[in-house]
């Protein structure tokens, strides 16, 4: 997009050589290694992506790394969106929290933790948010069972 080009990403690319810039359906995306995440988000905020929009997780079950955490940022002057993708391995589902950069990431990270069991290190209060505190498992993981609610009828729990 022409308007995206107005916002210089060169500074970011120079500062973080490990980050891979790309484009997906007319929107700029960047893959960042998780150790660089906080510094990258802070740098992106400082060059103009001032508004925090979204954090969510994706479970690509049989792919490596298994999880991906997606952070959406927005710049208003000039209008541009930046999507930051962070790969998170399934055997160590953790990455640094960005609540120190954007206070609004708090609820979104809690939701991602709740749904995927991805631990955000440094989050001030990483607890379940949508599900009850004593819920077992993380329902948006692809290996979480669907529709397996036990009921008290003979044979009803076999076919799930």
């Amino acid at each position, binding site marked *: 997009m022409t308007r995206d080009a107005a916002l210089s990403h060169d500074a970011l690319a120079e500062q973080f050589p490990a980050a891979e810039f790309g484009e*997906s*359906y007319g*929107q700029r995306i960047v893959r960042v290694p998780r150790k660089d995440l906080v510094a990258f988000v802070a740098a992106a905020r400082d060059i103009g992506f*001032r*508004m*925090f*929009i*979204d954090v*969510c997780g*994706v*479970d*690509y079950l049989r792919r490596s790394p298994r999880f991906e955490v*997606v952070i*959406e940022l927005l710049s*208003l002057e000039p*209008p541009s*969106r930046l*999507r930051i993708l962070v790969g998170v391995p399934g055997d160590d589902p953790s990455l640094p929290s960005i609540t120190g950069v*954007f*206070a*609004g990431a*708090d*609820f*979104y990270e809690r939701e991602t933790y709740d*749904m995927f069991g991805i631990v955000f290190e440094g989050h001030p209060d990483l607890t*379940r*948010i*949508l*599900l*009850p505190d004593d819920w077992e498992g993380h*329902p*948006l993981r692809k290996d979480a069972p*669907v529709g397996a609610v036990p009921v008290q009828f003979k044979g009803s729990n076999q076919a799930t």
Partner: protein
Amino acid sequence: MSNPPDIVTGETETYPQMGESEALPEPPEKPTPSRRRTLHDMWVSGTEAPVDTGRFTDEGAQEMLAEEEPDVLAGQRGTLVVDDYDEAAVSDEETQIVNMGPQHPATHGVLRLQLELEGETIRRVKPIIGYLHTGMERTGEALTFMQGPTNVTRMDYLSPFHNELCFSLAVERLLDLEVPPRARAIRILMTELNRVASHLLWAATTGLDIGALSMMIYGWREREACLAFFEKTTGLRMNHNYIRPGGVAADLPDGWEDDLVAIEETVLEGLADYEGLLMENPIFLERTQGVGVLTPEECYAYGVTGVLARASGIDFDIRKTFPYSGIEQYEFDVPTAEHGDVYDRFVLRFEEVRQSLGIVRQAAESMPLGDYRSEDRKVTPPPRARIDQSMEALIHHFKIFTEGFKVPEGEVYQAVESPRGELGMYIVSNGGAKPWRIHVRGPSFAHVQALPAMLTDSLIADTIAALASADPVMGDVDR
């Protein structure tokens, strides 16, 4: 002075008169306070002792005596005066935590707020959500792209068209599918009318919350005109499943132009009434001005968008910044304000209703002719009549309604300007007929999160006004 004789017995009873020599009898000794007085307790010595069965009371059948100790009882009745209050013993730092919700009528759904109060001042706010969580993102993974709008339309139930539009635009971007101009114009028309309906409902409930009780009736009354049009067009008043990938479900109904003219007239008339009712009312000003203030920095940090951000002076409207569905061809203004308080949000929402009605009018006047959904038979089912004539059409129909259409692999984020703010959907497709992942970024979720910023160090009475002005829809927050 003697008393008159008794009518029945003819006897004259004498009472001790005032000033006579006999001393008043001693009052009987108070029975020891017991939990229940039985006949045994009232036994007078010298008479035959009654059998204490423990069952007899002096209550009788028509009376109930309290069982509690007198001072406890006084506490319960509220007649107890506690005069051991020692001001020095109560610390100034003492706070109390009050639960508001999840069944509070002014929380607009099942939102629970825990407020830590110091006197009447709020020191800390903790929003607690999840009471309406039904796992709709997971449900969305089990439904095909064809069935997707039925699911997402139930999330933000006050702006169902925006949910459907956002989902459809995202899927169309993945499909690289061009939608006919008439479908695009109908989409804008319906979503903008939905914005009007949503803002009217917001004005009604917020008016009620801050004490303008008539607003409750007025707002719903005018909204009804919009809903009647929705029902006429889509068959449903809510959760329409009208905007689908590839176009819209049906063409506009007969006489739609006249209906829209009537709606505009009704709503504009109502709007003038609301403004006359509220905007200069001193009680209303007192309750809204300087209440629930958000600074632009807080909006950026918390992802606050929509009217809340514009009230704080951030000129951001997705319809202008990232236009969708051809909305850039209509003329409209995006009003902004600078104080960021509840009053400004009222002003902006009322103005937005006017602007949206203007867009609806322009869309109606310039409504292009043509098809209301894409001709791509891989995505939209063929007309019913074609199925009887063409084997191809039958196959397409069968494929779409059993398997659904396949969407190329990819991930896309699409946002639309819902009445509450930026409604975004992040959809990942793995090349199948069902989304691999569908994440909904609801504006209310961010706004509920920003409540502590709005409410900290304000008065508890302002909670209702600030919360209502954020217009959270819990279906959107919990999904």
